[in-house]
């Protein structure tokens, strides 16, 4: 990526049928997915048959009966891939997983509010908004009242790789860098098979995760880089 991120994270989301009570730090430790010190330092918010949520030094995990989510902002990001793969490919093979998401998020600075505003105008021009367009920006002397693009979601529905799903990118002002930051998240969404009722385990989803993780992360960073490139493009 051409701009050094201010913060960067990756996540994996599975949609399926889960037993949240299983996913305790002790279970991950017993299965060799995390180490002793990791398990002991875990900050458990809740472990219940309806929902489990805890944080490790390097990851956050939230599981309810339909959704498993893990994310990390600490490199190497592949640790969450390894944890999910080991949990579901080696131990929870009969847990049905119908959908898989590989997510990549980045906050980066473009140097100034005006540059970010210009990028916002490139992505979402004011002109199509007619007479309202010029009013959106507000008074340049009052930065706290400057309006503009708040959120833009683009979706590629024809994945082009043979999988069913979509590639979705969202661009927003960064909450971490309110003055000059941009937040981009890319959601690489896979439907596992054509008929969820025929999915009896996690293997098909794990095969996708195993084979597509690297491609997905690289593609997501490439998409994020396209947004970063707007910093130069807006000068032309």
């Amino acid at each position, binding site marked *: 990526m051409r701009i050094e991120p201010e*913060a960067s994270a990756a996540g994996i989301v599975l949609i399926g049928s889960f037993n949240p009570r299983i996913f305790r730090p002790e279970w991950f430790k017993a299965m060799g997915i995390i180490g002793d010190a990791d398990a002991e330092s875990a900050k458990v918010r809740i472990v*219940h048959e309806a929902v489990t949520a805890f944080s490790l030094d390097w990851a956050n995990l939230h599981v309810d009966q339909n*959704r498993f989510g893990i994310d990390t902002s600490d*490199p190497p990001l592949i640790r969450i891939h390894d944890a999910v793969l080991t949990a579901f490919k080696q131990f929870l093979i009969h847990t049905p997983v119908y959908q898989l998401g590989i997510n990549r998020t980045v906050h980066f600075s473009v140097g100034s509010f005006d540059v970010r505003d210009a990028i916002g105008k490139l992505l979402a021009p004011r002109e199509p908004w007619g007479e309202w367009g010029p009013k959106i920006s507000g008074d340049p002397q009052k930065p706290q009242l400057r309006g503009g693009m708040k959120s833009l979601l683009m979706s590629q529905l024809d994945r082009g790789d043979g999988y069913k799903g979509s590639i979705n990118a969202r661009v927003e002002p960064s909450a971490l860098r309110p003055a000059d930051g941009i937040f981009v998240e890319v*959601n690489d969404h896979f439907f596992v098979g054509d008929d969820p009722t025929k999915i009896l385990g996690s293997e098909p989803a794990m095969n996708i995760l195993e084979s597509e993780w690297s491609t997905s992360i690289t593609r997501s960073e490439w998409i994020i880089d396209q947004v970063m490139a707007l910093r130069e493009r807006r000068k032309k």
Partner: protein
Amino acid sequence: MNSLVSINSTALHLNSSDPGTLNQPVRHGWSENFLVTASHHGTLKQPIGHGWSENLLLTTSNQPTLMQPIGHEWSENILPFAVADELHKAALMRPPLETAPSVDRPFAETMNLLPHQQQVAFLPPAAPAVDVSKRPSFVGLQEWEGVVTEIRDRAFTARLMDLTHPNPDEEGEFCTDEISEDDLNLVVPGAIFRWSVGVLKMPGGAKRPTSQIVFRRLPQWTKRDLERADGVAKELLNAFGTMKTPDSDEARSTR
């Protein structure tokens, strides 16, 4: 608890003296269970009652999220505070794209929300949300994948593949003091690790160069993996077996 339960032939209604707190009926679900549906207009402001000994199902969105009753071990509130809170937060943060990251964005409070964002504001958060801007963040700038080739006293040698730039493989020597305690027993010949080099960005803006070595905890090979690998190997053998190589009998006979 300001709640009143009334039963008619087909439904169980729970009313509250707090205006606007519970405006959906509590339907009679299964023979011994109840289904409590929270509408999306901010309904359950308080845990519901404490008199029912059977199971309850609470849904926090239009789509029931819990297909099984939630437990039956509560003596006081039907829904433990922490469970309700976690489910509530998860429902609020659930994105329209189901596998996208959960988000907590500052939408204008009066904006019409998508169904997944419609609030069921029945409980305050159990703990204040973590402000990520106040934590240091480690941003990786370059990453290598390493394979341990040799182990010596308190050090090991590894072959390194640059994952960030297309550089040739390198060899590096690492001190085991740099390895976390959890990973020490994973340092064996052939073990795979990631070496990330980057900067630790402090909330005040300071940057510190840092690096981290993490040994990978990969799943063991399964029988299916081995069968699949065997199949690929056979395919390759067949493919190469039909090719004429310089050392093949046919090639030798034509020399």
